[in-house]
């Protein structure tokens, strides 16, 4: 709009700036996100992790107070996508279980999670099936198909698969020697790692057998866990942040802690973009409403 004096022309210029920002090519937004996340990865800022959240602390305390040789079942449901968030937590929790002399039974509820169990054992123990305590304190059942059907079968009968993933007979292993019932009643804790949902674990293991459930879950699942927490899900790790907290608690900071700076800046950047977008929207709205 031409003419109308200096005030109108200035208002047109600043309005068009906000409108230009709202019409910005989306690829500039992608580039900004890429740069903002890359900077703290390449040059860490050293931000403190902050206080350990209550849900992580509850899980840590629960495992810390388990008597030696208690059975902890780790349900690996993390695909490669969820592994970035869940794998550091799985490694940290397994490390804690090893320190406390707990028995750990691994199984995967999806095919893509199978290598992550191997990797977890190698990261903590240095070996998987060749470790001297394999078969005594740690067993890997590999992939058990059909999710809830598979867990239901395993919870009813721990010898459901008859062999571990390497073909060794379960009944010959010391791990399974002194089980009172051979069901999930013998389990002290079942920990779910993944991104899908934790309902089926609670349904099949907690309500029928009274086994406590925990989660090392991707952040996307966290809001869905709260209805079960803390009565049925006694604690959980919230994505990469929760894994970082557990790494700090077991005294071995790793990739999760290293990623926290980038997480902070990325969140800030997205919040700033939301605020700029909303300012632009309100300014445009007022401008249109004013004429």
């Amino acid at each position, binding site marked *: 709009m031409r003419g109308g004096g200096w005030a109108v022309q200035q208002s047109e210029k600043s309005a068009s700036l906000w409108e230009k920002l709202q019409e910005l090519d*989306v690829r500039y937004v992608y580039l900004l996100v890429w740069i903002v996340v890359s900077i703290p990865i390449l040059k860490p800022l050293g931000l403190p992790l902050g206080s350990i*959240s209550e849900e992580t602390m509850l899980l840590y305390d629960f495992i810390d107070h388990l008597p030696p040789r208690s059975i902890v079942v780790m349900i690996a449901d993390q695909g490669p*996508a969820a592994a970035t968030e869940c794998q550091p937590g799985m490694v940290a929790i397994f490390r804690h279980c090893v320190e406390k002399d707990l028995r750990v039974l691994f199984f995967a509820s999806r095919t893509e999670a199978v290598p992550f169990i191997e990797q977890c054992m190698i990261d903590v123990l240095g070996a998987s099936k060749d470790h001297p305590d394999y078969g005594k304190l740690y067993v890997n059942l590999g992939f058990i198909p059909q999710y809830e059907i598979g867990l239901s079968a395993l919870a009813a009968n721990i010898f459901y698969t008859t062999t571990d993933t390497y073909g060794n007979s379960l009944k010959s292993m010391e791990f399974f020697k002194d089980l009172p019932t051979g069901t999930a009643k013998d389990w002290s804790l079942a920990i779910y790692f993944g991104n899908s949902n934790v309902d089926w674990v609670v349904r099949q293991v907690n309500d029928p057998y009274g086994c406590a459930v925990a989660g090392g879950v991707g952040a996307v699942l966290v809001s869905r866990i709260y209805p079960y927490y803390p009565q049925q899900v006694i604690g959980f790790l919230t994505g990469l942040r929760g894994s970082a907290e557990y790494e700090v608690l077991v005294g071995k900071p790793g990739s999760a802690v290293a990623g926290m700076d980038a997480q902070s800046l990325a969140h800030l950047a*997205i919040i700033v973009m939301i605020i700029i977008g909303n300012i632009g929207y309100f300014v445009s709205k007022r401008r249109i409403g004013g004429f």
Partner: protein
Amino acid sequence: MSRVIKRDIPILLLTFTALFQAADTLIEEPTLNSYADSMRSAASIIGTFALILSVTLLTRLHTRRLQRRRTIIESTVLLISLWIPLVWGLWQFSVGGVSPTIEPFVQGVFNGIVSPGDSTIYAILAFFIASAAYRAFRARSVEATILLVAGIIVMLAKAPIGESIWSGFPILSDWILNVPNRAGVTVIILSAILASIALYVRMMLGYERGWMGRAAE
């Protein structure tokens, strides 16, 4: 007779299997529990063959594309990446007794193609969410404002920088997650279970026949 074999018996089979498994979860009786255990094993073995469908469908689709000279490079890449690890892995397992979970070539394919592919496809959403947040998330109404404010507080609390800015963010976020979020998600869970019960009862009574596939007469 034809309708009985094609439609009614599958529905009866579904109903019987469902009620048998449900009875097993409610009744502790060794014979029943043992048969139910066997049924679960059988269902797990049978369910594996559904993957044959996915492999066959992919192969059929992409061989047709190759025959029609469409997407030659992409379809060739897909068929190679599908069949070579599968055949090699099956060969090593059946003849050599090597589990695919430790077979080096299969694990190499997993680490080199499947794992980065899966991670990247989900990670790319970070960009789309950021651009959607910038272009579309507007506080147009009270509800939208509540959504935005709750989201921003939770985001700030879950990153270390939030607590550095203000120590109240984690406390506020905890309250949001424990109180209104828990209430909202509880309602979603309740709605889902009620809908599931209705759906499964309809399936068992034969009113819901979508699972039967085409021409469910």
